[in-house]
């Protein structure tokens, strides 16, 4: 149930975001965004629920809770970083 890890938990003003960071070398196997599978998303959503459940104070002053993805494409020695706010949500 509670297996896995949350990469980043960040608060910015009234927004609380759980961020899944995914990196890929090259594009041969698709983009890093694509690599965040349905199972992974469900896992992150579940972990976020658990994290919040054990820390009720974390929601004080928060109006929005987001699940974000930060995608890192590595090409040789350079990397490109994209931030997708609210990239997915939990539920059925």
């Amino acid at each position, binding site marked *: 149930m509670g297996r896995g890890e949350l990469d980043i938990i960040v608060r910015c003003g009234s927004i609380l975001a759980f961020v899944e960071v995914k990196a890929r070398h090259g594009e041969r196997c698709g983009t890093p965004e694509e690599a965040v599978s349905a199972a992974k998303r469900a896992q992150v959503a579940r972990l976020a629920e658990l994290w919040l459940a054990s820390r009720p104070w974390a929601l004080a002053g928060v109006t*929005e*809770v987001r699940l974000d993805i930060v995608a890192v494409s590595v090409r040789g020695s350079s990397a490109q970083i994209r931030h997708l706010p609210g990239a997915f949500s939990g539920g*059925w």
Partner: protein
Amino acid sequence: MLARVRSEALSGLEGHAVEVEVDVATAAPAFTIVGLPDVAVQESRERVRSAIVNSGFRFPSRRITVNLAPADLRKEGPSFDLPIALAFLAATGQAAWPEHAPAALGELALDGTLRPVTGALAVAESLGRRGVRALLLPAANAREAALVQGLQVIGAGTLEEAARAMADGAPVVAHPLSAEELLGVRAAYTADMADVQGQAHAKRALEVAAAGAHAVLMVGPPGSGKTMLARRLPSIMPPLSVDEAVAITRVYSVAGLLPADQPLVVARPFRAPHHTISSSGLVGGGSSPRPGEVSLAHLGVLFLDEFPEFRLAALEGLRQPLEDGEVTISRALTSVTFPARIMLVAAMNPCPCGFLGDRERECTCAEHRIRQYTSKLSGPLLDRIDLRIEVARVSRLARRQSAPREEPSAAIAARTAAARRRQLERLCQSGRYANAHMTPRQVRQLCRLRPDAADMLDQAYERLRLSARACDRIVKVAQTIADLEGTPHIHAAHVAESLSYRLRPPGLP
């Protein structure tokens, strides 16, 4: 925050109140629908999300829970898109949705436009009966729903319009439609009996059948005009009453067959399914039952050409609707009833090659092939067919000699309507509407035979070795003939004519 919007679920033609509740909570984002939704309702989440964003509203990242109450009723189809979206907008403070706001239903496209849904008329009627004052639905459904008196109907083209309809307090109201006017304006039938030359005997038989809603079997070689006659039968049936037109529209609306530009079905239906039709196609079926051909032919004509070629199971399935005027389809979770007051018209060739008994061409069928062909029409079903007639080919000479002007359908329809009125007066207490549906007891009580008619019937009973049921059918048809003539009693001539419609055409068992 929590918001509620009223909606409606249909099972068959019956409406059930559904409350759409949306709760938006600050928690890990999720979008969940509960309350026994089927797949189309689950997929509503994707349509609602896109429609909201593409209509210029915000879709905040929170936990959204949609509950469709009552939780034990199965919710099907896409018509909850609009109430879910409206409740969501209200719950997130983006739209006002007061307590006495209208009920809503509609399917959303991804860009926020509203797509028409099926069954709008049945929903509107059900809401009206429950005392709901207003209904918000896709503009394409507004005219159909506006047939319901006393219900304010608001048609919206997009989600934004629907949301604004409430905020402004100046809703886009579709004017109430009057079914009487719609019925009066249209010239409903394109095919007319006057197109058929000759065939006086068959036409008279069909007139009798139309007047009393009797089932007919036409037997004749290919090209003799069986289909042509059957197609024109709706036009000589008594003109549609307002209630009947609404009843037909209800079924067509649920089946999704109502044309967009036509809010009311104004002509009696004519359904001619192919003989390969399955039994559930004919009587209705599916895991969430849909009306079959018998229900689509409600108050009209179900024409079964090549009658013996139909599957036995399909034909046997017709017995209940012919008897009761409705079909009940039972499934594990639901049981729904659709109306099916049909006039059954069957047609067949006398033999596989089609020319048995023809005056000009010789039949080439072997004896046993003919028996095989007709053996499918076993007792119970044939028993429910009151008139059996032969439709012979009309020779070119006869066609040229026949009267230049055949009687138009409207004149015949006036006679059948008068005859039907007499039947209704006689049958008004029994809940039946035509002679064909009288019970044996009603036949004894209501049909008054003059002595000469009774004598003739007794003779026929002896000589033709009729069963009691066959006798009843002869009296029913004779009663219809008397009603067409407008006489209170059944005369010998009426019995004689009735007997002429049950002569066995060659090849029939």
